[in-house]
């Protein structure tokens, strides 16, 4: 079935053999691509072709291929995760493209996300930001009965909406300043909205912001491209909440004096 409506595409892919190597765009012609393929399956096909011609396959991060692990990335024609809203690259399907299209594929670009190889980048900066405070300090066994702390449904839903962040880094990739504010604010918000997060809220926001700065992400200029690029549809209202939490910590907290 696919042969009758297969797509012929030109791919321009960033190839870079290693973190410190020089990179360049290379052009590949793809023939008869089924519109039912996912974008990553199309790259699988390319890689199989490259192996046949003894060229090294294109490195790209991916794992769950169902939009939840946050490992896939890719700037596709200048858009993080491609043209669709609320979609990761692994969920993007080729029916979204037309026969004859040229597709430019680049890695996430941010000083804090150095390229490892080709399209794969190092996003450990996100882990280090979470390490700085993206948790509730509760040891296993400490917990009281789960229903002891009621959480209004509205708050829970807002918290969940922030917690939905998959940590893919599209917000950073899409932001003109390579800012990580949407990512950081998602975690700060999730916990700030819950009573469980209350005891550490000042320390959390202060430390996470400090770590974010240390990693070399840019600042937020409220352009909101992050929100449009976010596959988990995390709202920029969380950034305001982070700002609020931060100001509250500055004014109220006795820490760091």
């Amino acid at each position, binding site marked *: 079935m696919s042969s009758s409506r297969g797509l012929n595409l030109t791919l321009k892919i960033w190839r870079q053999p290693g973190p410190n190597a020089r990179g360049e765009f290379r052009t590949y012609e793809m023939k008869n691509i089924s519109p039912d393929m996912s974008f990553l399956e199309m790259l699988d*096909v390319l890689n199989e072709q490259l192996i046949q011609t003894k060229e090294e396959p294109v490195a790209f991060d991916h794992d769950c291929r169902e939009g939840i692990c946050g490992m896939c990335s890719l700037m596709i024609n200048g858009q993080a995760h491609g043209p669709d809203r609320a979609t990761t690259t692994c969920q993007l399907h080729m029916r979204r493209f037309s026969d004859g299209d040229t597709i430019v594929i680049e890695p996430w670009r941010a000083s804090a996300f150095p390229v490892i190889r080709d399209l794969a980048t190092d996003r450990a900066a996100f882990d280090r930001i979470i390490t700085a405070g993206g948790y509730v300090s509760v040891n296993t066994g400490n917990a009281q009965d*789960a229903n002891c702390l009621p959480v209004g449904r509205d708050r829970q839903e807002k918290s969940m909406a922030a917690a939905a962040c998959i940590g893919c880094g599209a917000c950073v990739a899409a932001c003109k300043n390579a800012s990580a504010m949407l990512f950081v604010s998602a975690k700060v918000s999730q916990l700030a909205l819950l009573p469980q997060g209350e005891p550490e809220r000042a320390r959390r926001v202060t430390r996470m912001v400090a770590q974010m700065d240390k990693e070399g992400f840019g600042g937020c200029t409220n352009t909101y491209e992050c929100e449009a690029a976010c596959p988990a549809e995390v709202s920029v209202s969380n950034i305001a909440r982070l700002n609020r939490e931060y100001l509250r910590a500055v004014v109220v907290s006795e820490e760091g004096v």
Partner: protein
Amino acid sequence: MAESHATTTQGSSRLQSNAPTGDITTGWDRHKFDLKLVNPSNKRKFNIIVVGTGLAGASAAASLAELGYNVKSFCFQDSPRRAHSIAAQGGVNAAKNYCNDGDSVWRLFYDTVKGGDFRARESNVYRLASVSTNIIDQCVAQGVPFQRDYGGLLANRSFGGAQVSRTFYARGQTGQQLLLGAYSALMRQVDLGKVKLFARREMLDLIKVDDVARGIVVRNLVTGEFESHTGDAVLLATGGYGNVFYLSTNAKGCNVTASWRCHKRGAFFANPCFTQIHPTCIPVSGDHQSKLTLMSESLRNDGRVWVPKNPNDSRAANEVPDDDRDYFLERRYAAFGNLVPRDVASRAAKKACDEGFGVGETKLAVYLDFRDTIKRDGAAVVKGKYGNLFQMYAKITGEDPYSTPMRIYPAVHYTMGGLWVDYNLQTTIPGLYCLGEANFSDHGANRLGASALMQGLADGYFVIPYTIGHHLATSKLPKIADDHPEVRGAVEAAKARVTKLLGIQGSRSVESFHRALGKIMWEKCGMARNEVGLKYAEQEIATLRHEFWNNVRVMGTGEAFNQNLEHAGRVADFLEFGELLVHDALTREESCGGHFREEHQTEESEAKRNDADFCHAAAWEYAGGHDSFTGDKEQLHKEPLEFENVHLTTRSYRE
């Protein structure tokens, strides 16, 4: 080939379950009391290696670090948060009885043993049910935003065939939220300096010194360097082996390598043939398919499964009137209807398709229809409940499930088998523990919905922290130098393997071998199995493996980020493991849970267990060489399973 496998040993002395005897309700408490403790100030002297950062691995690493142990945590992904537990959608079970509908620890225990078709260890299951309540408490305390009711208290839903509402959930992303909770606990310990994190590291071998697990060999996937890490205990929490079927709902990176390497170093592998096929997946769309996507089976709460009564019905689904539809689950299973357990629902769909009633272009799909629910509750209600799943379906298929019924087909989803462990989660190698999906212990031959998350977290938060102390307190564990012959030997063996893979320079890609293996597995050892097919599969796999080692083409070098090489190593192990899986399926001459042998079925085509001969866990010991694989060096040991509390009955979901 089957005949050449070594004969079996009934009730092997090598398999000491160490499970408490007597009253099952007090067993875990008594057992904990009997375990030796490690003095609090001594805990910091012990180093523990945890491989995998899914629910089991992350929760174990965090909990052990909280106790004071020094933990090294490893994962092959770029961050611990990516582990595939994250993809679990539906929920996590706990016997809280918040809904006042008659749930209890005993009922959860009972349901799990029965759901597992009486092939799980009772004592483990009871423990799992009893700590389930603590899991919810722990996760809520971490800030997991479970669904709430308007009063602010936790909401529950019924799930996966349970007749009580005991499933806690966070949208359709429960696994994600639980994993991020465990991940946050883990990262907190990283902050406190108790956990050292090693991401993008793949475990390639186990280091054993004096027959005790003392470390691992990993490859740094970014630089290609081999590293050895030694410690006082090794925990595997490396997930399931569903990708032996190539197409599964597992993440692309999921693999059996860590477990398999340990198996080849002496850990018994139990019940590999117990694989779960999930009924509600999006069907294959073509040869390019690289993975299958699951849709939560909560869909079956409101969706109705059907096929046209006429196999040649060419009408669009919506134009087929009710009289011409066969709601086969409702017809065959009056009591449970669309909510029968996964194995039953999957086989029923397969049967319908095998008989020619399948729908869609490939004819390998059945309809899951929300028409009646939308009519009854309105599209808004359906959207509120299942919106994200419908959206996912629409993204993948390009069809709108609000107006046309979804097409679904079963896919490999979860593997109940795994490394054999005793009640302490210790494998047959002292000092080597196995947690979560990677072990075999709690789900028997079939796992109930929303129980995988429960088990992973139970093992990590509430079992291993107690049981590991006993090993540390009672074993002599001298420090291992980095240049210890066993360390060097294991590193060299791992290096040699990589060198060998790179040196073959054949003409066939790793991917094509993986697909070929998957095809054999799915066709001959999938939802239904028979002797002829299994024997054929055994031979085919051996042949394919031989070709692999002579004709695979692995690109690039070992000294760099090389995903092709990573994949090659994993496929190499699947090519060995797959044969054991098939052989286990061949040896188990009965049908139970996810294992369906066509020779053993009732007149109504239901699974027919053989409790007289097969009421045991089949644990395979590998006695062959480490550098190669010969299937006939797999030797079977049996752990008899006794059912003192839940009496052996035939599962029936008909009335």
